[in-house]
């Protein structure tokens, strides 16, 4: 049996200019790394902000680790690292850690310090002088210092160079291996999430387009290549034709007559994202 870390029912966020989230119903299983994928403006950040209690939904329900966000103040078992990686630039790393200790009940100072040490960031350095990768590692250490059960990371890899991306990802994976915590990770670079995430939540235009166990989803879909004369199977997500050839991504098992291949996570996600874009256009 899987336990659920976060579940939402008909979650809706209405802004004056449109929908932030629209009737979203989904679950995130505990102890897994879930990918939150969607184009800019799909509702990824809105979802995370509602889950942390920083923002209140228009309607619908959400429970995070069994609690309604914001009802009993900030959830101590939840950590959130926003895109802006909120750190005080004038503080040194050490001062930032001390602030983290003061602001967070249940702070594990040894643990937070170890994470900073592993990142090779000098304790005396001012936050403002750190590289993007180092700053992310410090922000991560502060978010993890309270030993959360669920960590939500909003585009943690944006603006990082390839080596820093890998190091940050490794730091997150190593902590998951050690603590078994649940992670929700948003990114619009899907290749970064391939192999890392074992659960998927795909949003477009504020709506859930696809969700589930990544491996299950991949085995339930096929990339079909064949003659454009062939009859399309049920469950077509996206079909493209070039000359006499058709390339189709469909929710199906093997279809005779076509060349059948399981999609990669990127192929799967992009097909769903493109298909919703075409409907909207």
């Amino acid at each position: 049996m899987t336990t659920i870390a976060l579940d939402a029912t008909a979650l809706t966020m209405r802004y004056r200019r449109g929908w932030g989230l629209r009737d979203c119903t989904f679950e995130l299983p505990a102890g897994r790394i879930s990918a939150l994928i969607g184009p800019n403006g799909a509702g990824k950040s809105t979802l995370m902000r509602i889950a942390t209690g920083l923002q209140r939904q228009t309607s619908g329900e959400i429970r995070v680790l069994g609690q309604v966000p914001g009802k009993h103040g900030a959830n101590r078992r939840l950590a959130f690292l926003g895109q802006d990686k909120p750190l005080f630039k004038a503080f040194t790393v050490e001062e930032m850690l001390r602030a983290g200790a003061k602001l967070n009940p249940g702070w594990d100072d040894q643990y937070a310090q170890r994470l900073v040490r592993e990142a090779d960031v000098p304790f005396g350095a001012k936050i403002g002088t750190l590289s993007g990768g180092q700053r992310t590692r410090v922000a991560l250490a502060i978010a993890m210092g309270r030993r959360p059960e669920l960590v939500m990371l909003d585009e943690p890899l944006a603006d990082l160079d390839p080596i820093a991306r890998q190091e940050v990802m490794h730091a997150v994976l190593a902590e998951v291996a050690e603590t078994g915590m649940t992670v929700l990770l948003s990114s619009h670079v899907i290749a970064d999430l391939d192999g890392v995430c074992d659960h998927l939540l795909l949003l477009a235009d504020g709506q859930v387009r696809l969700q589930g166990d990544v491996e299950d989803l991949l085995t339930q879909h096929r990339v079909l290549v064949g003659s454009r004369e062939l009859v399309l199977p049920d469950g077509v997500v996206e079909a493209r034709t070039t000359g006499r050839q058709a390339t189709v991504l469909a929710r199906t098992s093997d279809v005779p007559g076509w060349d059948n291949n399981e999609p990669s996570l990127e192929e799967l996600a992009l097909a769903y994202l493109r298909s919703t874009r075409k409907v909207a256009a």
Partner: protein
Amino acid sequence: MIEFRIDRRSGVAAYQQLVNQTKHALRLGLLRPGDQLPTVKEVVTTTSINPNTVLKAYRELEREGLAEGRRGVGTFVSVSAAPAQPEADQLRAELAGWMRRARQDGLDREYVEALVKAELDLHYEGDGR
């Protein structure tokens, strides 16, 4: 100790790649009974894959009797896991001799690969991969 490598383009599930590489290392004698497999933390930081994927691979190896988990210590190659078979050395030597002859006779690589594959399909029919 061995180091795993994940080929994301191979189309083979990551956990299956870990299982295959472990078996391969056992066959070649790079891993022996009693050896420790890399910890989950080590695997995720060398391959950038999900820790649950590693756990799944190790569970599969345990199910097949090739590995055993020791609580709080790690996962080890089972004492009962068959080490590299001595007769395999003999067979390999014979295969090497055959390859040398094939090359001397001017068979190109693709031709040899096709021959080997055809014989594999014939003799290991239904064994899966």
